[in-house]
């Protein structure tokens, strides 16, 4: 089985334990491990990358302060994902209120250009990135979380089921449904990327 970028739950337990004993660097390791997943979860709810990173930071700070209350440290990723989704909802509520006050609108998608995106993959343009993000955002929330945990965090369906407290069979079915939708909706983009 290919190595998951995220190591075993025992290590999560150890990191949580060390953080609780006052080792801040252990929490740094937790952030390092789940940073991409948390940012991706935020990006699956908000459109602005900088805002998503702010949400990720806030989520980790909240997680840090509430870490003593974490009942099962082996389910750290699932716990973090729930905190992140909650933070996204709070942030969206604030943004709506702010926009109502200022009566301004979100940046239209048409304004985005064809410049290469500032991500790890220089092959995708900003427009293509936005297209993928919007396609994922259209998925139901339970599918979105699964897609991020599977494809971004690299967790297997078995581990995702453990983290979210679901049955592996349910997670498998949801993942395949989400995958089927993405495969259909992203087909033109996949052809475009493939031909390059």
């Amino acid at each position, binding site marked *: 089985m290919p190595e*998951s970028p995220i190591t075993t739950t025992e290590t999560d337990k150890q990191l949580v334990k060390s953080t609780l004993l006052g080792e*801040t660097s252990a929490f740094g390791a937790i952030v390092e491990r789940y940073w991409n997943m948390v940012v991706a979860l935020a990006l699956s709810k908000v459109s602005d990358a900088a805002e998503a990173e702010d949400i990720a930071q806030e989520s980790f700070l909240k997680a840090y302060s*509430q870490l003593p209350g974490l009942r099962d440290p082996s389910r750290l990723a699932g716990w973090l994902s729930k905190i992140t989704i909650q933070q996204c909802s709070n942030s969206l509520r604030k943004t709506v209120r702010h926009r109502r006050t200022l009566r301004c609108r979100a940046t239209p998608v048409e304004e985005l250009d064809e410049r290469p995106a500032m*991500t*790890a993959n220089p092959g*995708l343009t900003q427009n293509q990135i936005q297209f993928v993000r919007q396609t994922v955002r259209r998925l139901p929330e339970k599918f979105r979380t699964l897609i991020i945990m599977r*494809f971004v965090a690299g967790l297997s369906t078995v581990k995702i089921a453990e983290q979210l407290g679901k049955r592996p069979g349910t997670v498998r079915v949801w993942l395949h449904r989400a*995958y089927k939708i993405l495969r259909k909706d*992203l087909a033109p983009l996949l052809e475009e990327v493939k031909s390059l």
Partner: protein
Amino acid sequence: MTCEKYKNLIEKYVEGIISDGQIAELKTHAETCESCREEFERCVLLQDVVKHAFSSPLAAEQAGASLVAKLSAEPNLRLRPARFGTALFAGKRVAIAAGILLAVGLFLGFAIGRTGKSAWTPLTAQVPISAGKIEGTVLVRHEGSDVWQALDTGSNIYLGDTFHSTAMSACVLKLDKKSTLELNQNSMLVLKLYNDETQFFLEHGECTASLQSPHGPFFINTPHGRVEALGTEFTVKVIDE
């Protein structure tokens, strides 16, 4: 081996539960089978595209170091001692609290409902009318109640009260210092708020009004019409046909 087996392997790849040996096997098969190759390549590409579209420009190591520095720099950001559950269990706590409140509310409502009959307090406003001289037995029923009580001299009168004088009985309602309304025997009178004014409705029987002169508009309503006081004394009689 059939392609069905490799389709299952591709599904396992999507789920992240495929072994290295199975991946090698799949790749070998894909070299000779075009449809499986296309399917596998699309699967790998889709995962890459999603991963890269959602990757953060800020490296994870940098983010970790930055947060650790922030935690060290700000003493306010401390580990909070574990309370009853965490934010994730806040919903449960709220549900429990709501349940307790509901139970207490139901208990109080039941208890008040049971004791309410014996210690009944009228809900409508008290009006500046009082019961004067009473002969025989005159009954009063407050609005919203089914209980008839004997009217006593000096009793407070409330909006919505219904007065019933039995045979050989009568009562006087004092409207102010000099004006009175006398309810004769076998009569029923209701005090109601109508057009923001306290008004009398004579359902049946007879009543006599003695008003101080000069007086403002004064009416007695009956099932057949409304009688206005033009002088200082008059009697209204409602007879059932």
